[in-house]
């Protein structure tokens, strides 16, 4: 069965306009370490998974991997 598994990469990030406390924290921490010239920072997450049926990925994203209320996501088959 394992040869039928496809690798999928899902990228989840905060929707534009939604407050991103993690990104804010990084944005404020960088200058403290001497890195100047940093504009906005957004922190998202990357999920890699193997699935048999890639037509389910969209639903997985919507119902578990991302919170569509405040996050946007995109995914691709990588192998």
């Amino acid at each position, binding site marked *: 069965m394992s040869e039928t598994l496809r690798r999928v990469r899902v990228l989840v990030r905060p929707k534009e306009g939604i407050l991103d*406390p993690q990104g804010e924290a990084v944005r404020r921490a960088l200058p403290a370490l001497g890195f100047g010239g940093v504009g906005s920072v957004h922190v998202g997450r990357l999920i890699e998974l193997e699935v048999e049926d890639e037509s389910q990925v969209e639903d997985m994203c919507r119902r578990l991997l991302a919170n569509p209320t405040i996050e946007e996501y995109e995914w691709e088959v990588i192998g």
Partner: protein
Amino acid sequence: MNLEETYRSLGLSDAEYARVRELLGRTPNFLELSLFSVMWSEHCGYKNSRPLLGRFPSEGGRVLQGPGENAGVVEVGEGWALAFKVESHNHPSAVEPYQGAATGVGGIIRDILAMGARPVAVLDSLRFGDPADGRVRYLFREVVRGIGGYGNPVGVPTVGGEVEFAPAYTGNPLVNAMCVGLLRVEDLMRSRAVGVGNRVILLGARTGRDGIHGATFASDELSGESEARRPNVQVGDPFAGKVLIEACLELRRRDLLVALQDLGAAGITSSASEMAAKGGVGIEIETDRVPLREGGMEPWEVMISESQERMLAVVEPERVEEVLKVAARYGLGAAVVGRVADHGELRVLCGGEVAGSVPAEYLADAPAYEREVVEPEYLKEAQRLDVEEIPVPGDFNAVLLRMLSHPNLCSRRSVWEQYDYQVRTNTVVGPGADAAVMRIKGTKLGYAVVTDGRGKWCYLDPEGGGAATVAEAYRNLSCVGAEPVALTNCLNFGSPEKPAVYYQLARSIEGMSRACEALGTPVVSGNVSLYNETSGGAVYPTPVVGMVGVLEDVSCHATPGFGREGDVVAVVGASGRASLAGSEYLEIVHGRVAGRPPEPDLALEKECADRVRRLIAEGLVDTAHDISSGGLAVALAEMAIAGGVGVEVEVGSGRRPDVELFGEAGGQILIAVPGERWDEVREALAGVPWQIIGRTGGGGLKIGGFVDLKLEELRGAYGRDLFAEETG
């Protein structure tokens, strides 16, 4: 979009728009319309409830600040005072439960902070639909996570609250957060802007497009469209909230502020116009000085943004530099965004040009709608209950176990174990008792705090239920040994445009007010949440009361658990009033929500509760618990489980055994007293009704010939994990 479409899309009615035009004597521009639309929403303007709210008594001996400020304040003693308020976050929590609940906690904490008080306790009063529904379980789990997710890192203990389930809340959960703050009397701050030329400083997080039109959103019925409005969701940042708390307290301590106000619904607009209206001055805001999180924001967006973790301060010009220095040391954003002016208007400037300008008092003075109070048709039908039709069960052991394991009666441990209820180490009695008891370090003083709501009773009898809600809070505080002082409330109702709902609102307020007067507990703050409906059905009318009481000596308090074998167990309060009407038993076992619950006898209620409280304060009684949802049998089971000591009692008034065991009336308190102290206790109870019903001891619960259960059996049923259904 033409003008008509514009103001309607902002939520203003034709009549309201006409009023705006009349007040201004000209056509408002879009920015000005936006200001009116948010300030005249139900959420900010209390259009439908204001005329009714005046009924609440709001004065009393200990009250330092009544309604109209960010929170009410009462005096405790030795120069200490408590600020407290409860507020709803129902609609945001229905759309995004984690962030909705989290920002609800953050918002109420900032209200307390604005009074110059250190936030020291949070309570959450939660109501959801049928837990068998998957979406309801999701909302419940995420709301509880959100409360912990904000409350735990921000360093304010979550010490109590309620969780209740009823189909009426499906799709429209109630998420009410209460915060209590501690302050020195002389540190009390108010939000009145004064001093023409003083600067207005925005403290805290940068402003983004969070919750644009959240205030109008909160006043609309939830519908499928709410999904599409999702980008409105606000996200909480507890670490930023923590920094804001510490910085504001330092600014307060060093007397650097003239006035302070939380930014909540309707953002800068609401805060600035209220501060200006209270002080009889004007405020100018330069939107291009507001630090922004995203580019391209229009002045109207800046003005109504509901970005979290922000406060607005009025500061004398010569202290501005010092304020900015303090903020910088905390890593807290701070910017001078405007000044106090003498023109009485909220004036918005952008690029040196006036983008809009309206008298602040107009914004703060939303139109008020008074409606006719007509008894709805459903009431008579709902109150009808023929007890003869209700079969008497054969196996009371099975009935009691079934009730103890019901989501409305089982242990709330699986909820509160997710909360940090000990942080700051002032929690003497945490969640799970009749009320939370807190100490004030460096003194013998303590205070107790509780939230109560009885939606089902208010549905069956709005006035009696309203009174019963206040009486229950009073009784709960008395059971831990605290003298009830004052209360805050959150009125959760459906659409006031429906006559049945308006009736519920008006009569509940009447019942609550009567109880407040009889019990001597004024209302010092509150919040109204209307339009709690989905698919046309309203929630149960649910006024939630948050009451605060004082303990002169915090070491003399009581808890519900039986502590010793051989104690005399007695009921204080009138017997023979228990009824199946509106009882949990009637709903859980017989599937009915019906009958007219007994109205509280307020004078007797007060006398009994006060006696018990004095016994506890004198150190004669350390075990007390009120008989509430589930009746006598459930109350005894809770006391046995909590203390790990069994109890044997007799019942024998000759009434139906299910009425004796599970009937509800309010007004009764169970106490357990060591035999050698009983004579003293009996003397102190002279003049109020009491009755010895049995003694503690044995390995379980025995009630007459009806119930005989081991502690393990009780624990097994009661200790249900409310979240376990997730996987099972």
